[in-house]
């Protein structure tokens, strides 16, 4: 089996459209959440979202080709290009055929769907744009990444709601480790802050009106975000041979299904995914220093995730640094796991744990060290990235600092 390392990162986020800007905002604990700017904002009750601001597609795509890409695909391609540039890989010939593109997304081209339906039902139009289907399909972002980045190996989308990106990273990890491919471009993308989708979220009544404050007392729910993050994975041998900078090593991946409820989280299901990731990595709980939590900010998730960490880590749980990136960028759904895994890679590399911001004080049901409000400099040997989706689909990636 191959050892698998990360050699490139790319980010489009509410706090910046580069890894540098993103990581600076995370470590400074600077929120990217603000009131939504949508055409039909007047009808929305949503007070706060994590939108990618000032994203100018014309800076990244030729004018005549922009129409082929929904916002969700644009984000993915921009993040993938950044990651490939950082990795220094040049994909051509046999290597292109030995490279995979696995991109997670919860809802695919939602802007295209929302605008199309508005045209049909509100404006009473009788026809849609001819590219509506290929722009909206859930796999469109994976296809666009394969085309723009010259990737000719296994390429497809993974969709598991809020765990999509983590499942995609785990799938790519498996493929590189098993030598199915040499390199993989993987991650997640989401752009579903549309009038229709936000109305759906409002109906669930789980959105915070003031701030996203995971694990804190008086937390009032989640905040929807958007963006993309993409990573380049490759075999350690390949990275070493070409002298690439190795950012971190992926060592394990765990998955599980709660098999219980469409929305309510289950600590046992979460813990099984964590335990499987640790076993896959041949690690004991004591070897983990940091957990980037799913940490949505809902009453139910944060309590269940805390219980899951107690179940999996036992006495070591209280020694873990646990933080939620969603407090800063919101919940980017199908992109969340990749944005958060980028934070894990940077944390391992720089020895800095990004904070959980907006933390007001402890909730008796959430009794761990959530790195409240300020980043912490500390040695991180190994870390987990947790994603626990609606419908009980759980995915956990384990990574460690690369030390040779």
């Amino acid at each position, binding site marked *: 089996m191959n050892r698998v390392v990360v050699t490139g990162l790319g980010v489009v986020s509410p706090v910046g459209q580069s890894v540098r800007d993103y990581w600076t905002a995370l470590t400074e604990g600077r929120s990217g959440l603000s009131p939504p700017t949508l055409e039909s904002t007047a009808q929305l009750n949503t007070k706060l979202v994590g939108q990618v601001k000032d994203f100018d597609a014309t800076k990244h795509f030729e004018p005549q080709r922009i129409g082929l890409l929904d916002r969700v695909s644009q984000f993915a391609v921009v993040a993938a290009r950044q990651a490939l540039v950082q990795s220094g890989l040049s994909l051509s010939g046999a290597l292109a055929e030995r490279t995979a593109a696995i991109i997670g997304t919860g809802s695919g081209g939602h802007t295209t769907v929302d605008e199309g339906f508005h045209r049909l039902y509100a404006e009473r139009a009788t026809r849609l744009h001819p590219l509506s289907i290929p722009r909206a399909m859930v796999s469109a972002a994976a296809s666009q990444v394969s085309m723009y980045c010259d990737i000719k190996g296994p390429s497809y989308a993974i969709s598991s709601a809020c765990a999509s990106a983590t499942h995609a990273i785990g799938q790519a990890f498996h493929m590189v480790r098993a030598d199915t491919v040499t390199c993989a471009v993987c991650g997640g993308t989401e752009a579903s802050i549309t009038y229709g989708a936000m109305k759906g979220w409002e109906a669930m*009544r789980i959105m*915070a009106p003031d701030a996203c404050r995971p694990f804190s007392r008086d937390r009032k*729910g989640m905040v929807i975000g958007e963006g993309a993050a993409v990573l380049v994975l490759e075999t350690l041998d390949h990275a070493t041979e070409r002298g690439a900078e190795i950012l971190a090593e992926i060592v394990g991946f765990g998955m599980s299904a709660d098999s219980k409820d469409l929305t*309510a989280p289950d600590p046992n299901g979460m813990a099984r995914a964590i335990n499987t990731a640790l076993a896959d990595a041949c690690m004991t709980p004591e070897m983990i220093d940091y957990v980037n939590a799913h940490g949505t900010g*809902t*009453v*139910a998730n944060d309590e269940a995730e805390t219980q899951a960490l107690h179940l999996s880590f036992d006495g070591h749980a209280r020694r873990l640094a646990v933080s939620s990136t969603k407090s800063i960028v919101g919940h980017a759904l199908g992109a969340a796991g990749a944005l958060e895994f980028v934070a894990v890679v940077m944390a391992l590399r720089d020895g800095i744990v990004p904070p959980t911001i907006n933390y007001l004080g402890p909730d008796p049901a959430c009794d761990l060290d959530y790195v409240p409000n300020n980043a912490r400099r500390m040695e991180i040997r190994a870390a987990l990235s947790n994603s626990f989706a609606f419908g009980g689909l759980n995915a956990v990636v384990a990574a460690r600092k690369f030390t040779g």
Partner: protein
Amino acid sequence: MSEVAEEIVKAITDMRSKEHGALKLSDPLDKIGLNSLQVVELAFVIEEKFNVEVPLNANLDVSGMTLADLIQTVEKLVAHKTSLA
């Protein structure tokens, strides 16, 4: 019982499983046999029926609230709406 009370009791009865006994006005909302998502669905049913905005949230702690409190809240909302009309 008012029309509001009747509709709310009917909605809860339709939603929860049959083994629960009769509803009492003094029943706390978190003990009437609805999970948090069903409470949200209940709010939706009430809003659709009476065209009001019900301030129920899945993140709110409803443990201190009884069925009578909910009915009273909705009756006030409906009365307020009628007085505006």
